[in-house]
Each structure stands twice: as C-alpha cells, then as structure tokens.
C-alpha cells in the first residue's frame, strides 16, 4: 500500500536561504504523526512546502504514489491534502458559516457538505452559536475551532495542522485534540506540528523531531517515551 503522503529529501526556503535541508517524512492512513522541534527550525516551512505554498528546490513529494512536487496548491487540495495554517488565517469579513463553507470549496455535493457542516457544529457547538458572526469577531479559541473546522470541511485524506494548541486554554486544547482524534478514526492521515511534545504524547502514533532544517530523530510513540533524554537535549527539558 502506498502512503497518502510521502516526502523525500525536501529542500526549500525563502529567497536565497534554504530552511529545509533534506527532510523526509511519511504519513500513514489512520495514524497521527507529530512534528516537534524548537521554534524557527523549519516546522512551518515543512508544512508550507508540503501544501505547495513554498516552491520545492529539490526532493520529491508523493501522494498515493503519485508525484505532486510541481502541482499547484489548489490542485493538491483537490487531491485531498488539507493544510490548517498557523494563526488560523480565517476570512475575517466572512461569517463563521461562510468560512466553513469555503473549506468545502472543491466539493460539489451540497447535501454532503451540509452534513459535514452539521458534524463540525457537533464537534464544536460554539461555532454553531456563532455561525452568523463574522470571523474577525471571534475569540482566540473560537478562531482556532473555526480554523480546524474549516479544514475538516474539505474531507481531505491528509490533514496537516500547525500548532493547534498555541496560546489556548487547556479546556479548548482538549476539545481540539478530541476533534483530531475523531478525524483520524475515518482513516485520515494527520500531521500535527507542536513546539511542546507533551501535548502529542498519548495522541501521536509517531514523532518526528526537527532541528535546523533536518529531521534529527524519529520513532514511535513508545520509543519517544524511552528517549526522553534526546528530546530534552533539543527542547530544553520538557
């Protein structure tokens, strides 16, 4: 079976400065992978490269065995790759419901879209309450819910989430991770970026540790627990 998303030796970055220096990752359907590492070492750049927002210098990205390295962003979304970016990036003047509907932009079956919308509202009841409000009037936690919800609306097979817990109250974080756990039930492949690895323990099936634009360590959840000294070296004792 081919991986829903496979990246090999990615090199990319901004202007003249490469940030990623040969990164390889593989996502598995029905599994959550965690990407951790200190700030400013390429985690977000990796997601942006995978989604196509930043052009690839060298390396290869495959989805289900098909090379998508040169495929534009919107067509990668069409193939089921959904990137939930850092800082939510909501459409501020659209309502919450319109934001969620934009998430299903490429889906034609409006009945199925409405069903997904109901599912998202079940996961995040707060969004149902706020559905007519503009996104810019939401609180930080609600924005994150709207961002995740919008990503879920696409029904993509691969979900990449950038720092879902950043700056949120523990209760909201719990709710968001619960949503991701539910999402992976339907055989999706999920990649979650966090700075703080403790969030991912118990959630992620595999962990990648990134430092200075390279994956310096990777392993299963169990191996991660046994290698806490490695993590401590890189992350300063979490």
């Amino acid at each position, binding site marked *: 079976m081919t991986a829903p998303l496979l990246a090999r030796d990615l090199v990319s970055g901004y202007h003249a400065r490469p940030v990623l220096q040969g990164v390889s990752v593989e996502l598995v359907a029905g599994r959550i992978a965690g990407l951790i590492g200190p700030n400013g070492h390429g985690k977000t750049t990796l997601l942006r490269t995978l*989604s196509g*927002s930043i052009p690839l210098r060298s390396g290869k990205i495959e989805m289900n065995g098909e090379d998508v390295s040169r495929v*534009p*962003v*919107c067509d990668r*979304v*069409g193939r089921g790759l*959904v*990137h939930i*970016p850092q800082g939510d*990036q*909501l*459409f*501020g*003047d*659209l309502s919450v419901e*319109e934001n969620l*509907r*934009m*998430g299903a*932009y*490429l889906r034609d079956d409006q009945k199925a879209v409405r069903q997904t919308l109901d599912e998202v509202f079940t996961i995040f009841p707060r969004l149902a309450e706020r559905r007519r409000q503009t996104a810019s009037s939401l609180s930080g936690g609600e924005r994150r819910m709207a961002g995740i919800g*919008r990503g879920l609306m*696409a029904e993509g097979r691969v979900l990449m989430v950038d720092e879902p817990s950043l700056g949120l109250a523990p209760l909201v974080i719990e709710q968001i991770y619960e949503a991701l756990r539910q999402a992976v039930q339907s055989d999706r492949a999920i990649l979650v970026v966090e700075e703080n690895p403790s969030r991912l323990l118990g959630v992620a099936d595999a962990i990648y540790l990134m430092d200075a634009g390279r994956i310096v360590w990777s392993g299963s959840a169990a191996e991660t627990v046994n290698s806490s000294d490695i993590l401590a070296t890189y992350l300063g004792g979490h």
Partner: protein
Amino acid sequence: MDILIQILVTGLTLGAMYALASVGLALIFGTLGMFNMAHGLFMTIGAYAAFSLSGYLGLVLPVGLLIAMAAGALIGVLTHLLIVRFMLTGPNFETNVMVATAGLAILLQDVLLKIFGAYPFTQPVKVEGTIRLAGVAITLQSVVIVAVALVLISAIAFLLLRTRFGMTIRATAMNREAAELMGVRTTRVYLQVMGLAGALAGAAGLMISSLTTLSPQMGGDPLLKAFVICVVAGLGNVWGAGICAFALGLLEATVQFEFGVRFGFPVMLLLVILVLVWRPQGLFGRERVVRL
C-alpha cells in the same frame, strides 16, 4: 424648484457614470491590490467598440451595451494575462503595476488615435427624446444612464454578496494564501475580477460617450473622478465607491451650477483632501479589502 430638479438630474447622471467607473476600479484594487491606471482606456475601448460594431449588429441600446461590456471584459482579461499575472508575486507590485498600466494606457490611447483619428464622433448607440418632470425637460438618455448603472451595480452587489462565486472573490481578496489552501485557483479569480471590472468600465464608457463625444482621451476625465472617489471611499471599498460616486456627482452638479463648470472638480478635490486629513483611510475604508 426647476433648478433643484435640474441639478438633481445632472448630479444623478454624473454619479451614475462615476459609479460604474469607480466600482470596477475599487473591485480590482480590493482583490488584487493593484491600481489600474489603464481603467480609463477600458472605458474608451468599450465606447469605441459599441460605436464601430453596433452598426453591424443593430443600434439598439442593449446590443451596444453588451458589445461595450464584452470589449471591456476582453481588454481587462488580456491586461491580466499579458501583464499583471507576471508581476503579482514580485517585489514592489503596487508601484510596478501602476507604472505598467500607465504605460498600457498611453499605448492604447495612441493605438485608438491611429485607428479612429481625433475626430469627435457622436455615439450612435443612445436613446433619443425627453420626458418632462414637474415642468423640467429631462433627456431619456439620462434616465437610461441612471437605470443602467443601478441595474449593473445591483447585479455586482448580488453577485458578490449572494453567490458562491462572489464569496470566493471576497475570500481571495481577504486572504489570498488561505483561499489557495481551500483549493481556490486564485489566478483564475483574479482573471475573473479583471473581466468583471473591465465589463463595468466598458458600460461606463458607452454611457459617457453618449453624453459627450467619442475621443481617444475621453477616459481621462472619468478616471480622474473615479480615482478621487475610490480614495475618499477607501481603496477597494466597492460599496463605499458606489455611494461616494453619487454623492460627489450631486456635489459636482451643484458646484457647477453655482460657480461654473470649471470649478466642479477643484471643489470636489478640495473636499476630498479635507476628508482625508480627517480620516486617512478614507470614509469607509480600513485596509485593502473588498468591503460591502
């Protein structure tokens, strides 16, 4: 009373033409962040297209309007495909695109001059006749202009606010990168916006030429007014541009009547500068976004 009606009719007619001209300009700025210096030429080309093609296809207004809008849309789309597309992601886009479209404007104006000459043709596509309202004669063409503007602007408002297509345009205007992550092909949205704005400009050109005459530089004056309207409304504010267009049209008509035609624009501009000193982001504007 007669005078009041006269001023009102003149003002609304001016406002209608300005609205058609500036709504397209605002739409382009709001979506692409680009100031289209060639917008006046889009209008001129619409007017000339109706002038030269409607002879074959019938001189009735709806046909002429369709031709003008199609020509405007075509030139808008071509401008995007041949020029704008290549600079969108480059550095200094805001300055560069103004320079390039200004270059396009003098280029196209000269081409029109070489094809049609400087002779001030009259626009054959228009409605003749007058109606009387409370003893004041009003040309039917003025009524047509106001009606066409209202219909087209309402159509644009409906499109932007009530359709999926419009929602996509607004989303792209608010956050291009996020729209792409939703699977929106934003280059196509930009193309559509350029076509849409071009069509509005074409309609504006036809209406303007029906009141004055055709000439290669006929787009200059309405473009100048549209500039000022967009600035005072807040760049990219489509809704505000429509309202400001009518307000400034009425103001201009009043000033022209009170102080003479040549002071219409200066007073308008002076007022605009005062508004900007008070509100630097424009009357309705915040940042560049298609706002409704």
